[in-house]
């Protein structure tokens, strides 16, 4: 099976629970389990090849420009982790099926679980570090969903947030580190990077890259001082904890260190950072675990400690260390998954996880007792279980490690940590299963059914078998993975008995001392409780609170709910930034001569300035402001004509008409005046900002217009190819429908969406409070006596066919002369609006057959269809074609596929404009405006009043 498919299967599986959950949780669990099983089988099919030393790869180009390819690889290390992730995943799926209660949304759980599984499989199978980073972030996100699965619990939400913050921050650091690494190696391909050891370690950026990457690995694997998120993640349902903290999430950091071991390890930096961090974590985690009362908290800190041990082994940089590390990864996964599931069973059956309330379960839950005890003994490192073998190997390695010139320091600390490991494991067994039976368990405890027993039972069988026959059971996997970690051919010798050596003696001492510690525990606990300790959660919460307060203060200062404040600040900032850029940059000399000023444009200019000034002076009279805006728009349109932009002039003037109509309709409901509400100071400040903005934009445009293009203009390309490739003489139109058709397509879509937004808002406004307000509307203007005057009706009827013809003409000529879909759409819209104005919207609406929504939809679909049509001929999206046709009695006309696109633009613009104005008229109707049955009338409400 292709490695890519193996990585994809869990993601496909994530879709299934959503589809199948209505068939019950069994079906959802079976479907997810099947997907995991398929992936596992697919992975296992590659075992012979990997055992023979091969690497299975599969690669697809994704974004080759930035070196991101969907490359996957299966080597020994991927195989080890893949089997753990998928195998334990299947067991967790079974366990969760029986663990979760009926009220939990099981479908969601399985979806999150499969997403997480897919992300983890993706990490271990990635052959490209950028791809790996994507999966890495996915694990952070999906674990957030899993940890916070019980959304009703505040601890769940807080724990999930903390995990996301810590691992997410680490992930960001790691992205930077990976980028550096990829740059040094010259490739983001893991296979290539692994060959570049000398270049990487010689690089001056080696240390920064190492620190950043370790930042990601340490946060993920909960290494001191980032370990604090892990215990808080225990608020998750137990199956999640068992999965995340035995085999997957926290092992991702270890995986990464193992993956990059060949290129990063072997230096003093690596040894002192990684091995020391691991050793400290191992010791601290073990000590804290002894003093916790919650079963899951004990297991959480023991996980921290055990992860520290693996980190320390990887940090040694020796071949034997790497072998011990991968072997312990397997062992820890087996016994820790079993222990978590045992803790879950106890919680499920006894109703509590606190060791203070438990005890004597040996007789009540015999099967659970056997499973839990064997797993915990393995955690303590008692022979003949698998935990013993890897602990011996660890102690053996530690015994000949020299740390900063000290020969025994490392060994002693490791021994102390091992002692505490024994102690918390013994305490787990002793306080849960032994001692007197209690009277007052929250539930009456008894062994659960097969569903909950199967998964931990299976793991414990592995614990025993690996312990008894390490070479047979795990030797092959350890060899394969150690080979790919070290890049050498390793010959691990896993055995229970290595003869009497310092490691064995230390183990024996540790076991005895551990037992003593458990006996002394009741005395030690009060001392521990009285000891002042930094509480990570309090510190974390305080930091988060402070950051939130700062950002809130900054936010409140910038956006306090007053538009003017935000807008003014933004404008001032832009002006300042622009001034700074202008002052520090270099603008070339003014190379273009000014065009001479002719009298008529000068008159237009004066009109424009006067209208603008009047606008500011008289804007309080809103109707007058609308008139003035009409003037400004008109002069701008004339300006476009003068400045060789006929298409723009046509567009501007027709948009002007509809805009003013729209605002008039809106003004119908709004106050007709704006009163003076601001003081002189405020207005002065506003005027200052406005002047600065005006000077800035004006000055900038002057500076631009007086200089030639800094780079060669692409206008010439468009001019040269407009006819040759687009078949049109009107270059602006050809750019719109052909060269940059994709942009236009996006723009008409936006326009259509805007119209639909308006429609939706109107729907809302026509219900509820605003509807009541509209129904009781009192018009503040006198109504015209003749709402639909005869003259207007007759004139518009006469004009309609003419204006429609003009619209058609403008549309057809658009490719070669000023015009096109945009303008034609606006013109037709205006001619229809004239009918609406003359005879009322409702009257006209009855005679209008095509709904405007449909028009927008058809327009967008038509434009898209034209683009897709090019695919049929094997050409890129929106490639146009054209030809010339001769119809009888008419001039030769040109038909281009671009014209169909333009028709889409036309329909969309028409529909959008009409829908927007129609929405406003629907509000007018709500105010009790009477619908006329005849095309023209005198105000019927008036005549009715007179009749009464």
């Amino acid at each position, binding site marked *: 099976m292709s490695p890519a498919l193996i990585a994809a299967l869990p993601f496909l599986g994530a879709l299934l629970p959503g589809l199948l959950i209505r068939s019950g949780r069994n079906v959802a669990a079976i479907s997810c389990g099947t997907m995991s099983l398929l992936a596992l089988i697919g992975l296992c099919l590659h075992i012979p090849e990997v055992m023979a030393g091969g690497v299975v790869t599969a690669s697809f180009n994704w974004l080759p420009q930035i070196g991101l390819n969907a490359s996957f690889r299966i080597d020994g290390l991927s195989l080890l982790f893949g089997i753990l992730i998928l195998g334990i995943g299947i067991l967790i799926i079974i366990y969760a099926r029986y663990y979760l209660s009926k009220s939990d949304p099981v479908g969601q759980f399985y979806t999150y679980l499969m997403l997480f599984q897919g992300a983890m499989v993706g990490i271990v199978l990635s052959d490209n570090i950028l791809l790996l980073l994507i999966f890495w972030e996915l694990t952070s996100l999906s674990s957030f969903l899993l940890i916070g699965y019980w959304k009703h619990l*505040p601890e769940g939400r807080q724990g999930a947030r903390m995990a996301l913050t810590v691992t997410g921050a680490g992930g960001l650091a790691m992205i930077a580190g990976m980028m550096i690494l990829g740059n040094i190696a010259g490739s983001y391909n893991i296979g290539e990077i692994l060959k570049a050891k000398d270049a990487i370690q010689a690089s001056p950026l080696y240390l920064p890259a190492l620190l950043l990457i370790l930042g990601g690995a340490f946060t993920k694997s909960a290494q001191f001082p980032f370990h604090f998120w892990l215990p808080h993640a225990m608020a998750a349902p137990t199956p999640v904890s068992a999965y995340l903290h035995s085999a997957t999430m926290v092992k991702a950091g270890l995986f990464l260190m193992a993956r990059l071991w060949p290129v990063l390890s072997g230096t003093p930096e690596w040894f002192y950072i990684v091995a020391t961090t691991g050793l400290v974590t191992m010791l601290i985690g073990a000590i804290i675990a002894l003093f916790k009362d919650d079963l899951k908290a004990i297991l959480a800190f023991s996980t921290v400690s055990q992860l520290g041990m693996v980190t320390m082994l990887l940090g040694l940089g020796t071949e034997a260390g790497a072998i011990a590390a991968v072997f312990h990864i397997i062992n820890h996964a087996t016994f820790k998954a079993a222990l978590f599931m045992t803790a879950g069973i106890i919680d499920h059956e006894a109703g509590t996880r606190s060791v203070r309330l438990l005890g004597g379960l040996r007789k009540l839950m015999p099967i659970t007792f056997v499973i839990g005890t064997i797993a915990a003994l393995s955690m303590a490192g008692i022979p003949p279980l698998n935990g013993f073998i890897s602990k011996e190997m660890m102690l053996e390695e530690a015994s000949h490690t020299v740390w900063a010139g000290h020969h025994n320091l490392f060994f002693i600390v490791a021994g102390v940590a091992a002692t505490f490991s024994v102690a918390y494991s013994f305490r787990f067994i002793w306080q849960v299963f032994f001692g007197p039976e209690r009277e007052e368990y929250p539930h009456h405890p008894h062994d659960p059914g097969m569903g909950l027993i199967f998964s931990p039972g299976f793991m414990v069988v592995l614990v025993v078998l690996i312990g008894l026959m390490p070479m047979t059971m795990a030797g092959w996997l350890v060899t394969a993975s150690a080979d790919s970690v070290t890049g050498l051919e390793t010959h691990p010798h896993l055995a229970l008995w290595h003869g009497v050596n310092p490691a064995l003696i230390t183990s024996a001492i540790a076991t005895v001392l551990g037992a003593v510690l458990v006996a002394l525990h009741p005395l030690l606990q009060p001392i521990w409780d009285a000891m002042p300790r930094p509480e990570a959660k309090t510190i974390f919460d305080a930091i988060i*609170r402070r950051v939130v307060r700062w950002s*809130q203060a900054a936010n409140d200062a910038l956006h306090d709910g007053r*538009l*003017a404040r935000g*807008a003014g600040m933004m404008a001032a900032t832009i002006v300042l930034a622009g001034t700074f850029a202008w002052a520090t940059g270099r603008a070339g000399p003014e190379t*273009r001569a000014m*065009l*001479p000023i*002719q009298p008529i444009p000068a008159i237009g200019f004066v009109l*424009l*300035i006067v209208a*603008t000034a009047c*606008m500011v002076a008289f*804007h309080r009279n809103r109707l007058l402001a*609308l008139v003035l*805006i009409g003037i*400004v728009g008109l002069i*701008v349109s004339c300006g476009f004509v003068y*400045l*060789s*932009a006929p*298409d*723009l002039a046509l567009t501007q003037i027709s*948009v002007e008409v509809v805009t003013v109509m729209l*605002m008039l309709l809106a*003004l119908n409901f*709004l106050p007709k005046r*704006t009163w003076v509400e*601001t003081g002189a100071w405020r207005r002065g400040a506003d005027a200052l900002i*406005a*002047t600065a*903005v*005006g000077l800035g934009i004006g*000055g*900038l*445009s*002057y500076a*631009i*217009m007086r200089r030639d293009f800094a780079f060669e*203009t*692409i*206008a*010439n390309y*468009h*001019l040269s190819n407009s006819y040759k490739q687009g078949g049109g003489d*009107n*270059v602006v139109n050809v750019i*719109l429908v052909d060269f*940059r058709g994709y*942009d*236009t397509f996006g723009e008409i879509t936006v*326009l259509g969406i805007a*119209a639909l937004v*308006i429609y939706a808002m*109107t729907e809302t*406004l026509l219900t*509820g409070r605003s509807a009541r307000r509209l129904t009781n509307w009192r018009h503040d203007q006198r109504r015209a006596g003749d709402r639909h005057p005869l003259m207007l009706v007759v004139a518009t009827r006469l004009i309609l066919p003419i204006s429609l013809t003009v619209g058609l003409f403008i549309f057809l000529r658009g490719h070669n002369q000023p015009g096109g879909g945009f303008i034609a759409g606006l013109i037709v819209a205006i001619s229809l609006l004239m009918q609406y104005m003359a005879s009322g919207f409702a009257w006209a609406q009855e005679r209008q057959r095509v709904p405007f929504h449909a028009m927008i939809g058809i327009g967008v679909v038509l434009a898209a269809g034209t683009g897709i049509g090019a695919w049929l001929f094997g050409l890129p999206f929106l490639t146009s074609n054209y030809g010339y046709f001769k119809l009888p009695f008419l001039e030769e006309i040109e038909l281009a596929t671009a014209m169909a696109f333009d028709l889409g633009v036309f329909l969309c613009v028409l529909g959008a*404009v009409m829908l927007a104005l129609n*929405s406003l008229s629907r509000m007018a109707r709500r105010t009790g405006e009477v619908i006329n049955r005849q095309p023209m009338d005198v105000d019927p409400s008036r005549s009715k009043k007179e009749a009464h």
Partner: protein
Amino acid sequence: MEALVAIAIGAMSAAGMYLVLRLRTFPVVIGMTMMSYAINLFLVATGRLAINKPPILHGHGAVDYSAYTDPLPQALTLTAIVISFGMTAVVVLLSLGAFLEGGDDYIDMPEADRTERGEKE
């Protein structure tokens, strides 16, 4: 001519900015319309001014570039004009809806909502 166009752009954007800083919705909408005029003209101006040189080809032979103005800014501005209509329409309806629902046409958030949001959980 360049100076006149620059002054016009500056005047329109200044007026637009001043109106955007007002307290009621209607002047703000008008101000945004003024701003869009100024920006559209500015975009066209980045293609440099040219008189009597519309980008409409005369013949189909070799193209004399100096006879035409830059068509690209015009194409971009054309869609910008239509989009700014769409934006104006949405904003007009928003202000109308705010007036009908809230009973006044102040653009700012009501004082009560502006107070500091407490730190919740």
